[in-house]
């Protein structure tokens, strides 16, 4: 048997071919799309939640929506772009639901965390523990923002996307993206400043 035959068929078929297969009635073709794109979606979902069960739910919800709306996908754009747009909306919905259902507000960042952040100088030398602490701190600070502020900061600042890309992903116009980014930056700076106030009171 040749090496080629050992590779699963989904690995050597393009996204467009797999979509065509699924729309033709062979649902198993969708598993190839899931296997190919799930790492990217997991990385994206983990930007919005630290709870692994929430992350899994977000990714699953995203694939379910993708399956349902697959007929609306037009093959003139890459499937990945279409899927990431859908994933962005799913993450945004998750943030809004989370905010709606949140009963208690998170406490401000502690003095220890503020001190830790002030001590972090050489970013390149961050070890695994510090990376985990950094993500926890970032998540705690971002959790205080409104969903649209968190989304726009994550896309612009952490994923380093351009305003035009964010506008395409979210469906907002470029001006709205800039306005929301401006407000989000100020809001996050205020969150960080509050710990300063507590520290010296």
């Amino acid at each position, binding site marked *: 048997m040749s090496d080629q035959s050992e590779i699963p068929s989904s690995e050597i078929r393009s996204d467009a071919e797999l979509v065509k297969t*699924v729309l033709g009635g062979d649902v198993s073709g969708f*598993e190839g799309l*899931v296997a190919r794109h799930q790492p990217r979606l*997991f990385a994206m979902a983990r930007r919005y939640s630290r709870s692994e069960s929430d992350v899994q739910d977000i990714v699953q919800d995203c*694939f379910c929506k993708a399956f349902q709306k697959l007929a609306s996908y037009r093959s003139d754009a890459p499937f990945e772009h279409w899927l990431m747009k859908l994933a962005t909306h799913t993450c945004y919905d998750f943030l809004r639901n989370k905010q709606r259902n949140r009963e208690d507000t998170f406490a401000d960042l502690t003095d220890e965390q503020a001190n830790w952040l002030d001590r972090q100088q050489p*970013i390149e030398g961050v070890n695994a523990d510090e990376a985990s602490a950094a993500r926890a701190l970032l998540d705690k600070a971002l959790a205080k923002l409104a969903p649209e502020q968190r989304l726009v900061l994550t896309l612009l600042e952490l994923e380093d996307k351009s305003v035009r890309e964010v506008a395409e992903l979210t469906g907002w116009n470029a001006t709205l993206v800039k306005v929301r980014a401006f407000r989000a930056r100020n809001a*996050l700076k205020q969150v*960080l400043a509050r710990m300063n106030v507590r520290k010296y009171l």
Partner: protein
Amino acid sequence: MNKRSNRYYRLIELGRHTPPSDDVPYAFQHRVMANLPLAIEPVDPWFAWEPALWKLAPVGALLLMLAVAGNWWIPDSSTITDEADDVVTSTAMAVLQE
């Protein structure tokens, strides 16, 4: 740069340098496949037309307003014709009587 901004940029930089993992739980795609909705939504033809229809709505409204305003302000052409006929007839009668 003040401390407040400093912390902001440091936090953002830390976030950039510590991207979340892209690890996938074992056999996650099987879970997704087992929970897929039963049917694919058919494409709604109105969905494709909807944005264009919304863009055309103001133009349609404007045309409607113009039509209403036109009917209101411009006198009925049949009335003008009748009046012109009356003028011609009365003039002709006057000429004939003379």
